[in-house]
């Protein structure tokens, strides 16, 4: 079947941007296959307005499954039943934690292959071929599917394209299995710590695990202050999970996507999950003592050395230069 099904993650009345990007990409691919892009929403408060957000970016049909949002086991049951009923060969996800979880479980259920972290998809011989960078983006792997394929995109891989179209909306009843019944989502999307704005900064000093302690964020604060103007301090996921910095200041796959004029990484290793949130930065400066840190693969200027020595000296030098 030439139609492509896309899982559209939605929360608080909004379809997720990465899901929208996946829908737009599916519309392009389905066009080449001679089919259409369809979307599926899972949740308990699915409105027609929400479904039309998927329609506006390329879905011609939207299925709604009335089941709790935020739980992979539930979504796998619902989407697998839909794939079975309608005969889809291809299911696309926009990325994110649920994308990985649902996509992998779904592939096992429907007897397909699954690829995660996909950055490009092509049509070849009437089938989809997914491209995934591996080994710190030093090599591209291509997935060829034997029958059904589940493709989970890397965050921010696909652009949202507004078509202004509308979709037909259809409720789909799916039985939810026992495994889903074992899971209860108690809290969804809790923002921990202070609300900090990192998306509007033109200079962003980001602290990673290399800072060593929460107190050492003062090194990043001082450097950002020396730059002055529109600068801010951000963090990697590792240090946010460790409680050193508020969640609102996290850059990466599960945090914010930033594109400052200057990104400064202090003790940031540059894992893929972080890179996807900052790779559009105009200039990247990295200071890290680990010469094997992946950030040196994409930094414009990299310094292998002790940030605790270099960053304070840099702070003073910038202050002196500014007078």
């Amino acid at each position, binding site marked *: 079947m030439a139609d492509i099904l896309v899982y559209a993650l939605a929360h608080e009345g909004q379809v997720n941007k990465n899901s929208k990007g996946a829908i737009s990409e599916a519309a392009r691919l389905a066009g080449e296959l001679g089919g259409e892009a369809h979307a599926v929403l899972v949740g308990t408060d699915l409105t027609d307005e929400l479904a039309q957000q998927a329609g506006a970016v390329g879905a011609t049909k939207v299925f709604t499954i009335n089941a709790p949002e935020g739980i992979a086991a539930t979504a796998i049951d619902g989407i697998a039943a839909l794939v079975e009923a309608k005969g889809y060969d291809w299911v696309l996800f926009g990325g994110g934690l649920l994308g990985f979880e649902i996509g992998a479980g779904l592939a096992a259920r429907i007897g397909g292959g*699954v690829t995660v972290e996909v950055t490009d998809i092509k049509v070849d011989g009437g089938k989809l071929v997914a491209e995934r960078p591996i080994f710190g983006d030093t090599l591209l792997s291509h997935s060829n599917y034997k029958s059904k394929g589940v493709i989970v995109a890397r965050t921010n891989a696909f652009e949202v394209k507004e078509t202004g179209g509308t979709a037909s909306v259809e409720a789909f009843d799916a039985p939810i299995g026992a495994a889903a019944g074992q899971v209860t989502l108690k*809290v969804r999307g809790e923002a921990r710590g202070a609300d900090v704005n990192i998306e509007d900064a033109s200079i962003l000093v980001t602290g990673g695990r290399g800072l060593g302690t929460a107190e050492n964020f003062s090194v990043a604060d001082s450097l950002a202050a020396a730059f002055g103007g529109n600068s801010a301090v951000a963090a990697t996921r590792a240090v946010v999970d460790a409680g050193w910095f508020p969640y609102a200041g996290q850059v990466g796959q599960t945090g914010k996507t930033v594109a400052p004029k200057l990104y400064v990484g202090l003790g940031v290793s540059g894992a893929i999950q972080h890179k996807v949130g900052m790779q559009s930065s105009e200039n990247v400066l990295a200071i890290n003592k680990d010469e094997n840190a992946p950030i040196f693969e994409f930094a414009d200027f990299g310094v292998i050395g002790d940030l605790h020595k270099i960053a304070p000296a840099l702070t003073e030098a910038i202050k002196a230069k500014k007078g």
Partner: protein
Amino acid sequence: MKILVLVKEVPDAAVEKTIDPATGQIDRSGEKALNPYDTHALEAAVQIKENGADVSEIVAVTVGPDSASRTLQGAVSRGADRSIHLSDAGLAGSDVVATGYALAELIKRESPELVLLGQQSDDGGSYAVGSVVGEFLGQPALSQVVKLDLAGDVITAERQAEYGYDTVEVKLPAIISVGDAINEPRYPSLKAIMGAKKKPVEKLTLADAGIDAGKVGTAGSGVDCSDFQKPASKSGGTIITDEDTAATVEQIVAWLDERKLV
């Protein structure tokens, strides 16, 4: 309760990873190490036991070539009571679904209440195997967990999802993949390292474990990832090593100045 910890041998992080052009599979020769994320899973298992849960045993399980036995022993030294090693030439080329199927078959033989694993591996890095295992077992799988509390047969897990932190309750049996923020793994003591050599190891082939050979390996996999290409090379940045901090800072400032950033 019984806890199984899934572990994997990966190329040492410091070693450059390559693809064997003859087979299209990851070249797994060279220095090996226990997947760093799995050390967090082992630590989590030990902490559950130390925190007073009635843990009858912790079993480390791996799928990999014979040479992975040393890595498996290393995993045992981090607190497992015994280990299971599935090794069979028929597993070569297994995709994540096929690997998850094989692991699920091993888990079925043991019927643990809890299965723990690292959220991703340093080589394949698919974040997906826990979810596949859960699917084949008909049990819920939670990934990227950074906090885990057990009360009776319910685990309260925290993780970062798409919109911030989620708190999820899951009734056991379940599969939990952990992130590296969940704990600080302890280094095994010399006594534990020596003791690990004496802990029982069960070595199994596909036939021993009753695993359908048609569902694993290249033939049993739904996706073939053996087509590799080098990405278009982009112009690399300037990388310097700090030897004289004053000179280093001067270079950074000059670079910033050129781009009108200071």
